[in-house]
């Protein structure tokens, strides 16, 4: 049966940009909700990665005797895991943001993309705190930041684009298939080892390096380490493939979310 397409005109529909206050309010609520009724509150976002780092540092350097060539292992690990934690928590948060807040979209008309974006913005705060902790960690270990440190800044955009793209993609698909949640968890478990977190890219077999660096998070971590510790501006051949993948993920994420969002209030 063919049905003529409906025509709906709202003369006062606002754009996503006009909802930035809602985005910040939701992000603030997300952060407060996470630390509600916890004594240490926001300090958890410092403690958590630090304890993780301590465990990995002890196991890998004292038990397995992994040599760390460039910087102390704790610094190497922390500089990687802060991006990894940002990416995984942002995607996980964004993925559940629509399915857990159906009550909002049924009752208010607003660009639904605000929900996943707000949860990604909320995780950026943790990342910003981690960045400060990294600087403190560096001075603790006597690691001087290289003058090329500025080159790490554009890589933040790459990590952000990858997180937004993957977050929108999974948020949209998760409303239709809850399998996406399991798939994402599995890929994070594998991805942790396929991302240069507990090792440096140099240690990876050169033959497969190109494939490793296709992962935007891997490219970001690698580039950041080069800029911060090695004193070299990351070469384009190392970061460009990952950047292109991040852009592709962003485009796919935005397109799929736009396509799927009309069905959200019906399937949820």
């Amino acid at each position: 049966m063919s049905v003529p397409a409906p025509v709906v005109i709202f003369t006062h529909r606002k754009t996503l940009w006009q909802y930035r206050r809602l985005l910040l309010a939701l992000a603030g609520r997300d952060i407060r909700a996470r630390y509600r009724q916890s004594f240490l509150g926001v300090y958890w976002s410092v403690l958590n990665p630090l304890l993780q780092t301590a465990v990995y540092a002890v196991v890998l350097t004292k038990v397995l005797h992994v040599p760390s060539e460039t910087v102390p292992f704790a610094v190497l690990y922390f500089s990687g895991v802060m991006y990894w934690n940002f990416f995984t928590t942002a995607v996980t948060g964004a993925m559940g943001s629509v399915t857990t807040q159906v009550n909002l979209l049924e009752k208010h008309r607003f660009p639904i993309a605000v929900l996943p974006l707000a949860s990604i913005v909320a995780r950026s705060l943790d990342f910003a705190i981690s960045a400060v902790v990294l600087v403190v960690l560096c001075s603790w270990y006597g690691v001087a930041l290289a003058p090329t440190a500025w080159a790490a800044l554009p890589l933040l955009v790459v990590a952000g684009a990858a997180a937004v793209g993957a977050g929108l993609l999974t948020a949209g698909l998760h409303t239709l298939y809850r399998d996406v949640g399991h798939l994402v968890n599995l890929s994070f478990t594998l991805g942790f080892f396929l991302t240069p977190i507990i090792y440096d890219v140099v240690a990876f077999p050169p033959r497969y390096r190109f494939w490793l660096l296709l992962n935007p998070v891997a490219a970001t971590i690698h580039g950041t380490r080069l800029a911060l510790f090695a004193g070299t501006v990351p070469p384009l051949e190392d970061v460009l493939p990952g950047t292109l993948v991040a852009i592709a993920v962003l485009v796919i994420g935005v397109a799929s979310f736009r396509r799927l969002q009309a069905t959200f209030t019906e399937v949820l």
Partner: protein
Amino acid sequence: MNAPGVLSSPPGGDPEADVAIAAHHLGKRFSLRHERPTTLSQELLGVFRGGPATEPFWALDDVSFSVIRGRALGIVGRNGSGKSSLLKILAGTLAPTTGTLVVRGTISTMLQLGAGFHPEFTGRNNVHLSAALLDIPEATLRREFDGMVAFAELERFIDVPVKYYSAGMLARLGFALSTAVREDILLIDEVLGVGDLAFQRKCEARMRALLTSGVTVVIVSHDVEAVRSLCDEAIWLDRGRIRAAGPAEVVVDAYCAASAG
């Protein structure tokens, strides 16, 4: 934006300026899958069984009406007659399957109790978030906040998590919030009956003031007396179709007579 032949154009001026909401042949079809496959294996099984058994269900069928700016429209009908779906379509949170809809003006909604309130947060906190949802400017909110809390009679409870609120308290806060700022169109679903008698009077008075100031109101309610007294016109929905439309009193009387009989 002119749709020739849809609305007759009075001579002079913008022909459609005074119509706040114009709906033509709106239809909403839901697919009733008795078991919606939400996992891959269910979906795959569905493919082998020749697709999931879906049954089209028209929650709204050929619904046409218009609301003049500054008037109040009541929507009555039994449970499941499509009232709430229609209001969601007007609010823009649900897309129609067929038909044409034009909504002119900014919209404030009050759909269900405590819509979008987070139970763990205080009333104050939730008001700030809802204000962002309703796009009430920060400055306006600061100016209106105390008056809003006073109207809702929640001065003592505004810093208490809303999970401790009673249904009446939620309704009062919701109503105060969605009417604190004058928007062009106000959509209200089934919430007026919750407050006590004194508060219902206050709500009615505020709604009348809004109507006089030119706000267009659409009310879905089982409270036929409220529809009778507040609304100019009403439509009676029956299984997704308009069974009667016209002056509120006439439609409500017909609906009451049919329900009694």
